[in-house]
């Protein structure tokens, strides 16, 4: 950057960046290669590469309990994640549109209330919600995940989209209104295309959080036939007291593959999403 000694300086920073980067990514790479190792090798904590590539960890791991395989757990995870994400996007778009573009009585108060719900810890809500869902007969279904998404219970995303909508000039709405568009048409035809980056970032983060979520499935789902990946992995850890680490590492690697693929395909939206809203990650 500066002229004096900039050559050497940039080489040093490159080496530091590279070294730190390797340390960051090492555990993931290690996990991937550990899937091909024998249990003995893992227990001895040998280096990165396996002595011999052995795929039995994947085969045995995938079979899981025998009665249910990872095919089921993947299907369950998709059934849990995809509707949750879709409902979240739809409800937060509608709600944020209402907050950003309409001045109804009490809108500021309600917006304030919505933001303050960000502060309520899940620990306070989970016991009464559990009892509520039990009374509704929703336990051991995916409704405890879908319904909060349908009903806009993710203030993070609503806030993010409100911020984004406020940045879009109102002249666009006005022009469409003069042309005879209704408010819903304005949202769908005019605003949605501009909102796209924000919508994608909502999709990404909701996918990650729901995919990785462990505590909620642990409480709401109790039969193995409905287990998502998180619970299946945990079950593998439980069952294997004399742990078959290669199977666990293999399935752990497989379970994060969809997230990693999504991450590399959509990475530019990640950074955008965090930078505009300050989401946790």
């Amino acid at each position, binding site marked *: 950057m500066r002229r004096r000694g900039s050559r050497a300086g940039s080489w040093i920073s490159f080496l530091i960046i590279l070294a730190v980067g390797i340390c960051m990514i090492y555990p993931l790479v290690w996990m991937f290669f550990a899937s091909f190792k024998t249990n003995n090798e893992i227990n001895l904590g040998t280096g990165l590469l396996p002595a011999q590539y052995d795929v039995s960890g994947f085969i045995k791991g995938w079979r899981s309990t025998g009665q249910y395989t990872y095919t089921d757990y993947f299907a369950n995870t998709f059934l849990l994640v995809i509707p949750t994400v879709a409902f979240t996007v739809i409800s937060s778009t509608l709600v944020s549109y209402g907050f950003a573009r309409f001045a109804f009585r009490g809108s500021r108060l309600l917006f304030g209330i919505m933001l303050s719900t960000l502060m309520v810890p899940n620990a306070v809500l989970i*016991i009464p919600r559990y009892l509520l869902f039990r009374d509704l007969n929703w336990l051991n279904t995916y409704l405890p995940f879908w319904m909060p998404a349908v009903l806009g219970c993710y203030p993070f995303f609503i806030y993010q989209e409100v911020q984004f909508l406020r940045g879009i000039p109102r002249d666009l709405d006005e022009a469409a209104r003069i042309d005879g568009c209704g408010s819903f048409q304005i949202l769908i035809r005019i605003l949605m295309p501009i909102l796209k980056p924000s919508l994608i970032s909502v999709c990404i983060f909701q996918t990650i959080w729901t995919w990785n979520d462990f505590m909620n499935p642990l409480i709401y789902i109790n039969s193995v036939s409905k287990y998502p990946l998180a619970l299946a992995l945990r079950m593998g*850890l439980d069952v294997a007291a004399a742990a078959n680490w290669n199977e666990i590492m293999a399935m*752990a690697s497989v379970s994060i593959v969809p997230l990693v693929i999504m991450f590399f395909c959509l990475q530019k939206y990640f950074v955008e999403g965090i930078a505009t809203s300050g989401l946790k990650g």
Partner: protein
Amino acid sequence: MRHLYFEGAGSESGKGMYMTKKKSKKTGWGQTSGYLYILPWILGFLLLQFLPLANSLRYSLTDIKLGGDYRFIGLDNYIRMFTGDPDLANSMKVTLKYILMAVPSKLVFALLVAMLLSVKMKGIRFFRTVYYLPSILGGSVAISALWRVMFMKSGIVNNLLGTDINWLGDPKYALLTITLIDVWQFGSSMVLFFAALKQVPKDLYEAAQIDGAGKCGRFFRITLPMISPIILFNMVMQTINTLQNYTSAYVVTGGGPIKSTYVMGLKIYEDAFVKSDLGYASAESWLLFVTLLLLTGVIFFTSRYWVFYADEGGR
């Protein structure tokens, strides 16, 4: 962030109010359609947030279990929390220690990396992506399982470091091992710092250089004050997240050894869903809530002494 919100809400809806009054005569939408759009959230708030919140407070005054009837027992749960439960005091201590270890190290690390990555260089985008990868995976059971394998006594970490530490079995190290998962997920703080660093005006550095300020001086006198609003934001967000996180403690160590990683969230979960003591666990969850409010309150209160807003309105 606070400033942003108040400023935004004030001016925007002020304008909107005027506009809808004028428009509503012609088009007829305004009040009602606004409510219609936020209707999902109103229902969600009432049924899944407000009602549970009120119920939680009510349950905390009862001896409700997973099945059967319950009766009101007044403040007994709260009295028991402070007088008859040594585990709870331990869990509070562990949780605070966890926050004090995880949040500052995560922020310092995120800031250092963000500064490293703000160098102009070919391929820097790739590194930014790689550095962010742990943040999207770190919360998963897969990574917790990985931690259990890597930090075994005969595991790869001890082998690489040439040490013989019982990471998961020694109460001195167990919480540290869990904290490392959190520090590893520094990505979102890093991205925010990165954006903030880019917005520090270059002429400030030039002026300081002319005045003879060294690298250190420039960092402490210019960089830190200019990005202090983002430091505040990251600190609050990470404190809230860390206070509530117990997936890693649950899967990696199960709260042990000798309850040295038995964080509040985990204790509440076990009291409620393992010991079936829902009433008492509700009372504990309110203690967690109050702790969260106190911690963020303290951070906001002290922030007036160390957060610097470049323009009066904040940024």
